């Protein structure tokens, strides 16, 4: 079977009018074109950074996400100061009880300075990149006195991986069904296409809401996490399947597939070695552009209280606290988790756009 494989690679290289005399592989060409897109590269680097922060949240976040401190509820963000004698430090907190609302209000205590220590070791022996012996809440705390910055970092784990896992699931579903649909055609194709049409005709948020509400209340956080992932990807595989089907249909009649068939290659071999490789770039682009939709979907669901459930935390769960205007007016810092959502979604959109331009052989 080896000769046929070589033929496909040649066809791909030769089919690209912008190839440098066939010197570079398809992948190298994509990489080269991608690098020219400044926004795409910046977006990619930013996302990489976010993922590193999310995965290493135990180390990068100053506190554990569920470290509750009822005496320090709704502390406003503290400013980071710098002096040559103390290095970075934050001022201490003074609490005053508001005579009207009876809530504790915090102001800074200028006499106290809590220096920020790098590679700080907390009471349980865990290392943190930076933390402080005194209270240090750079983005303030929530209604249970938990550090918002740490919670955002931990929330990134759920919010950002959920998009990835969901997209992976819809890639698997979409490419399998898309390939079947395009390769065999006939009634199977018809059935799959009709299913996709039905799915795409539902308004997705109400459908997600219904499915999210249907998740059993007794499930553990991990089960809920995967449940939400499956819900999000169930509705989103259709578009991908369509694209794959179109590609497969186009390639099915091409010369190199004919040649492979004439040489006696089986269905499995033709699909995996000749048809799918031609779809990879498309799949990657569509997948990248699908991730932000999933992240937004999760955020919206959790925001409504139908998604991820505490104690697990995600950006949507954090934003749920900011749902009421009265709360936001008193504690405006609770809206901070919206910022990473925005940045990540914009970055994914830019990255996907750059990849699409790079993967399209007809662009210049």
């Amino acid at each position, binding site marked *: 079977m080896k000769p046929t494989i070589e033929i496909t690679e040649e066809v791909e290289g030769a089919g690209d009018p912008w190839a440098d005399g066939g010197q570079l592989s398809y992948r190298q060409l994509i990489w080269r074109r991608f690098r020219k897109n400044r926004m795409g590269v910046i977006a990619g680097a930013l996302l990489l950074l976010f993922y590193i922060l999310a995965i290493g949240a135990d180390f990068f976040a100053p506190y554990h996400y569920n470290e509750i401190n009822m005496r320090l509820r709704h502390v406003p963000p503290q400013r980071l100061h710098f002096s040559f004698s103390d290095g970075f430090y934050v001022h201490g907190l003074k609490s005053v009880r508001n005579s009207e609302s009876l809530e504790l209000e915090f102001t800074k205590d200028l006499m106290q300075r809590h220096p920020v220590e790098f590679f700080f070791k907390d009471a349980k022996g865990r290392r943190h990149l930076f933390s402080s012996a005194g209270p240090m809440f750079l983005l303030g705390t929530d209604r249970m006195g938990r550090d918002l910055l740490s919670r955002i970092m931990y929330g990134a784990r759920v919010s950002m991986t959920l998009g990835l896992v969901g997209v992976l699931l819809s890639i698997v579903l979409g490419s399998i069904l898309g390939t079947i649909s395009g390769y065999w055609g006939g009634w199977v194709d018809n059935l799959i296409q009709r299913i996709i049409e*039905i799915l795409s*005709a539902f*308004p997705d948020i109400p459908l997600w*809401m219904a499915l999210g509400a*249907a998740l059993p209340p007794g499930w553990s956080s991990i089960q809920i996490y995967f449940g939400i992932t499956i819900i999000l990807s169930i509705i989103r595989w259709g578009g991908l399947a369509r694209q794959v089907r179109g590609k497969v249909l186009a390639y099915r009649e091409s010369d190199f597939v004919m040649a492979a068939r004439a040489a006696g290659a089986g269905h499995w071999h033709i699909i995996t070695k000749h048809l799918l490789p031609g779809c990879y770039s498309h799949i990657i682009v569509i997948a990248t552009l699908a991730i932000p939709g999933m992240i937004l979907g999760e955020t*919206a669901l959790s*925001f409504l209280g139908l998604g991820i459930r505490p104690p697990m935390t995600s950006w949507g769960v954090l934003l749920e606290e900011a749902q009421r205007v009265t709360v936001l007016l008193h504690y405006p810092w609770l809206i901070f988790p919206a910022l990473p*959502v*925005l940045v990540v979604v914009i970055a994914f959109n830019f990255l996907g756009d750059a990849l699409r331009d790079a993967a399209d052989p007809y662009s210049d």
Partner: protein
Amino acid sequence: MAISIISFIIIQLPQGDYLDREIQRLEEEFGDSSSLAQVEELRERYGLNAPLWKRYLIWISGFVRGNFGESFEYKREVDELIWDRIAFTLIISVGSLIFTYIVAIPLGIYSATHQYKWSDHFLTFLSFVGMSIPAFLLALSLMVFAFEIFDVPLFGLFSAYYEGAPWTWGKLGDLFKHLWIPVIVVGINGTASLMRIMRGNLLDVLGQPFVQTARAKGLKEIVVVSKHAVRIAINPLISILGMSLPGILSGSAIVSIVLGLPTVGPILLNSLLNEDIYLAGTLIMMLSLLLVIGNLIADIALAWVDPRIRYE
């Protein structure tokens, strides 16, 4: 084409109910906490004891005749609860749709005719931000801004004075005063992506030979763009009309929940949380039906605008 539409509608219908049955099944599993006899009685009354397919048949046959069953929570016919809300949902959705097209098409044309100028880059960036911002966040921040700066609470669709009052011209005016905010908030996402599509389409068309011919004939650039290019480039946007409907309905649902508007969204959330199956089922069915009708209108509009499709 008519056949395709009809078959489309037919396959849409059972799917919507399947979902509701699913919700029913789950609801049954977890039941409610009232005493057993009461539960039994309720079950009997709502026909929950019948097997799945029978319940489904009863429900769907009622549905077709306009009998949607009874809401558990409100102890009233679903029928009475939903029509107002569907009407408001429609008003907001159609409003945002109009807003989307009115804003997106000129911006897309401008962006395409000024390709790679700074204004194009600016609009591109803006559209990326517009596509990325979740609608509920926009609604939330608008509410806070309105409260902080103008000191007006942006809650609901009517002022307190008109709430529950009979329909008068004054009430209608008050409605429009409140309406534009949800309409814009819901429309922003769609506007941004539509603008990108319009720009792409127009750029494709502008590169085609017939546009060059038109230019070679000595026509003014504005005539070339408006009479030749835009007419072709706008066609796909009409077929996208159908595709952008789910987004708008979704957006209106979630924005309504945040802004407390009397549309389908909040009541749907409520009914889902309380496992009020007939109400939830009817609402989801209605939303899907709205979509199907919207798709139908989009298809008809496309056939009306583009003769090539009619003869297929």
